[in-house]
């Protein structure tokens, strides 16, 4: 019994670990071909990551990645592909920034208002794709991609002009942003807490308070999925929609609800940047939507797995910055590494899954042989 548990754990870890190994091997080959020393490059990255300031950066990067990953994972658990996290979070970002700048109320309410607005907008926008799927049969992959484009180059581009901060644009370096949010609406950084355990954080780095929200979202995601009826219905619909429907799970409502939930979490992706700057910037961070999908894939939609995945991607993103300074290699190598990790991970998961299936089938066959062995026919021969 114990050995089978150990084996199960080993198989579970085999896929992500082998994906990482494959990624390291492939990028080493690429680095060698391009005339760089892979050992030196990796060494520089790891050494850079051992600094406290870099670690703060990594956590700041991992926080939105994790939220984006959980948003994608909620959909994946129900076989829904919410490719539209990018559009949902940018739209939520700008609306939350605008609403937050309109009021000045006690800090707790102000911050809560901003978060609620962001989650509502993200959820509503994702809900459109859910409604289109169940009422009009529009595949959610295509509709969320189109809604992405409509949100990013349409709605956000329009709203930023509508809501742009007053005053001299030339004075702000020609950048168009929304009005800044009052101090009461900004979630404080975690530096004071961090410094209790470590040392003073230098270089003006601040550990984002959204990290706490992200952890809370992760716990809620786990509880919702594994400890509630809704979560059970969600997983059942994802595993076998027909069986779930026969068991009384309304499939259409589940699709819309899952999309709305996914979008609501997506709405939080931009909060990190919002609480840091206080306004919607003229060129907000991009690409977190697709990166979130990758994070969810690598983390197997598991709340802890996604966290690890987010940390790995964040480490690669942040620590590769040092490569530009030391010149050990082109920092673009990490983009290839991330791509290879994902592709290798999804393949490795599939292979491990098949190995497991085969073992289960073999175990079942052995069990049947055992129970059928003492039958009279078998004894007679």
């Amino acid at each position, binding site marked *: 019994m114990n050995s089978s548990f150990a084996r199960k754990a080993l198989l579970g870890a085999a896929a992500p670990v082998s994906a990482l190994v494959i990624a390291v091997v492939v990028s080493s080959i690429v680095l060698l071909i391009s005339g760089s020393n892979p050992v030196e490059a990796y060494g520089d990255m790891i050494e850079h990551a051992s600094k406290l300031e870099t670690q703060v950066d990594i956590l700041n990067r991992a926080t939105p990645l994790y939220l984006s990953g959980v948003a994608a994972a909620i959909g994946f658990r129900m076989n829904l592909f919410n490719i539209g996290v990018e559009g949902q979070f940018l739209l939520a970002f700008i609306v939350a920034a605008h609403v937050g700048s309109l009021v000045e109320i006690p800090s707790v309410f102000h911050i809560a208002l901003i978060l609620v607005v962001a989650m509502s907008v993200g959820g509503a926008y994702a809900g459109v794709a859910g409604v289109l799927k169940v009422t009009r049969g529009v595949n959610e992959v*295509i509709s969320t*991609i189109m809604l992405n484009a409509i949100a990013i180059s349409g709605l956000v581009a329009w709203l930023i002009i509508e809501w742009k901060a007053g005053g001299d644009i030339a004075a702000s370096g020609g950048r168009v942003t929304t009005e800044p949010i009052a101090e009461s609406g900004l979630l404080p950084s975690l530096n004071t807490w961090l410094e209790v355990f470590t040392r003073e954080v230098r270089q003006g780095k601040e550990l984002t308070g959204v990290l706490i929200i992200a952890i809370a979202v992760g716990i809620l995601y786990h509880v919702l999925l594994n400890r509630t009826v809704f979560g059970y219905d969600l997983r059942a619909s994802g595993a076998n929609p027909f069986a779930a429907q026969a068991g009384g799970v309304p499939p259409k409502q589940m699709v819309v609800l899952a999309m709305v939930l996914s979008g609501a979490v997506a709405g939080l992706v931009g909060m990190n940047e919002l609480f840091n700057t206080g306004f919607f910037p003229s060129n907000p961070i991009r690409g977190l939507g697709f990166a979130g999908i990758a994070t969810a894939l690598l983390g197997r939609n598991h709340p802890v797995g996604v966290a690890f995945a987010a940390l790995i991607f964040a480490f690669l993103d942040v620590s590769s910055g040092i490569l530009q300074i030391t010149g050990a290699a082109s920092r673009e190598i990490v983009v290839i590494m991330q*791509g290879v990790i*994902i592709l290798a991970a999804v393949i490795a998961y599939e292979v491990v899954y*098949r190995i497991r299936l085969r073992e289960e089938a073999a175990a079942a066959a052995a069990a049947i042989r055992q129970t059928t062995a003492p039958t009279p026919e078998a004894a007679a021969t």
Partner: protein
Amino acid sequence: MRFDLQRVPTWARWMIYAAVGVLVLTVVQGFDDTERLTAVSSSQAMLRWAVPIMLAGLGGLFSERAGVVNIGLEGMLILGTWFGAWGAINYGGWWGLLIGVGGGALGGLLHAIATVSFGVDHIISGVAINVLAPGITRFLSSEILVDYDGGSITQSPRVPGVGKFTFPFLAGGDLFGWKSPDMLGWLTRKNWFWVSDMTGLLKGLVTQVSLATMVAFALVPISAWVIWRTRFGLRLRICGEHPHGGETQGINIYLYKYLGVIVSGGLAGLGGAFIASPELSGIYLEGQTNGRGFIGLAALIFGNWRPFGIMAGAMLFGYPFGIGLRDLDGSASHALLLVNTIALGAVLVWAVRRDRRVDAFLAGFLGAAAAVWYFASDTVPDWWISILPFVIVLVVLIFFSQRLRMPRADGYIYRKGEM
């Protein structure tokens, strides 16, 4: 006897649709005091914008007819832009296209390995390829393009193209050094209502056409022939309809799925090379595909998984791109609002006659919204111009998604011998 449109041959029916469409454009642009909707340059722009969408769509066709959903088209398009640009800069225009095909096919091969050999979910593998492809091109740029004169990590120097061709007689092209008459141009200059508008748009389709464009359009009938008239096509289709049935016939399903997905990548790669060619940008630029792989996928769905339908979809989606590109004052895109209203009105009539209440309500509502906007404004903002094609894709899918038939085993993870 009542005139029955359904009894007219398909090609003639499409021509009638096109002529009616031009009539609508002609009337509408009269209100807005613009001639851009039916100008020669507009149909030329539409053609250029339609080609990559169409090639991505045809790519999707080969893959999905073989039962493999290919959301990685965007990534393969991206590979095509880089390899196409690199090939063209080093070896000339035609080699650029060919090397672009190779780059895209490489992406297709990767997708095939993941989905066919390892049985990974098709969407997941496609997303992974979409993440990997820009990483590869970025790295290659940082290694190769930065050393070029005028190149950088995000862009290449100018990319040479292939020749252009003007059709003789129709548009006055040269024939062995003799300048033939320009019939369409003559008709266009007459400024006859509707007729001159049609000839104007037609002239754009046959004037100064890039040979690459001609290759792309030739691929439409070729694809149709290959998929429906050859043994290869029959076997490809059985992979997408009933792979286990094909297996009992002794067909190597894995092989045909591989071929379908690799061809798919190659076609998308050609589309990417076209984007980097002087026909559209004349340069490799990071992010220049701008979601056209996904629009190609939408064209595939719009075209009901058929080559000529894909072509029609690509033109429909390419037209607002082409119009928007030169529409600095927004007047032509403003006129398109009324076109949208009329199109939605047609959908409304169709829905009422079929007694489809929800469709009728939706069409009426959207049409009215477009009409209100049209009459309440003189021009449309920049952002509307840039998202119009995506809106059209979404609206088209809202009305027609339920009337489509995708290959039966599309997206099904086939394992040999496992039912």
